[in-house]
């Protein structure tokens, strides 16, 4: 399972954890808390080629649906089937049982351009990360 300190983070709040030739993707603790109670996750199909920053699915919570974006480019090799039965895993365990999908990265170094945990924590303190409406 992914550990927050081993992940890289996109400004759109997805995390990616690259291990060997596979990258696991999910959304951050901050993202799940802002989305509130997740009731459904629409994941990309296995075999789909996704691009860095491309919208590749939706997370639905009470009243709202959110696009999420792939933090790396590559081919989707697996999706988290458990989310179909228990989407609230995203809220309870965003780095463990609440992962979204796995990708065979086109370029394993792509993830390195994303923020590490310390940088992401700093990013969360900036107005660019979150604001109010």
């Amino acid at each position, binding site marked *: 399972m992914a550990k927050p300190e081993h992940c890289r983070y996109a400004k759109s709040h997805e995390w990616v954890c690259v291990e060997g030739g596979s990258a696991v993707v999910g959304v951050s603790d901050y993202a799940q808390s*802002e989305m509130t109670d997740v009731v459904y996750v629409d994941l990309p199909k296995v075999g789909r080629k996704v691009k860095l920053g491309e919208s590749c699915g939706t997370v639905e919570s009470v009243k709202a649906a959110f696009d999420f974006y792939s933090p790396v480019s590559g081919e989707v090799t697996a999706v988290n089937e458990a989310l179909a039965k228990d989407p609230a895993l995203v809220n309870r365990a965003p780095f463990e049982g609440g992962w979204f999908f796995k990708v065979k990265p086109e370029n394993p170094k792509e993830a390195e351009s994303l923020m590490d945990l310390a940088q992401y924590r700093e990013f969360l303190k900036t107005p660019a990360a979150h604001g109010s409406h």
Partner: protein
Amino acid sequence: MALDEACLDLAPAGTGFLRFYDWAGPAVTFGLSQSYAMAAGMAQAKGLAGAPVVRRISGGGVVFHDGDFTFSIVFPWERLTSALGVYECMHVAVRQGLKACGIETVVAGPGQAADACFDAPSPFDLVLPDGRKLLGGALRRRAGKGLYQGSLRPELIGLPLEALREAVVRGIRERWPCPWADEPQASWLEEAERLRAKYLSDDWNRRR
């Protein structure tokens, strides 16, 4: 529904667009992840068998469009923030607009969302002081923009529709001081025409 999605996708970042629309006849829309069978069953129970039953790209519940006042708002939602917070702000804005017309409303407190939009107030719906639900809506966030799709029961307040439109515009534009487009651009309408097939398709409407 197609034009709403086209506006969400093509409205320039940082701008807003608010539009009002009517229905050719009774219709039913339901939330992105809801089941078609459930929505169709609820439509039948409501006496709307035969009405179009269409999946939205927003969340939320089943809405019966049988005399409601509907509008949609594309707005900047650049940072990921709480949907309930955005939803509350929308309804505070409309409340302010209605207040200027002498209509008192209340933003509902936290509670449980119902499967059908007007069964009971959901958190932060706009309700009358006696608790009846006046306005509910649903949201979609995509690429730093938000789409709000709202449904209001005009018969509960008796305000002329033109005054109601003005109240909504005033409230929303005061709350979101961004540039607002007055009309959809030709490219948005072209995109809506392309998306129309999606909203007529079983692939979309019956995907769950």
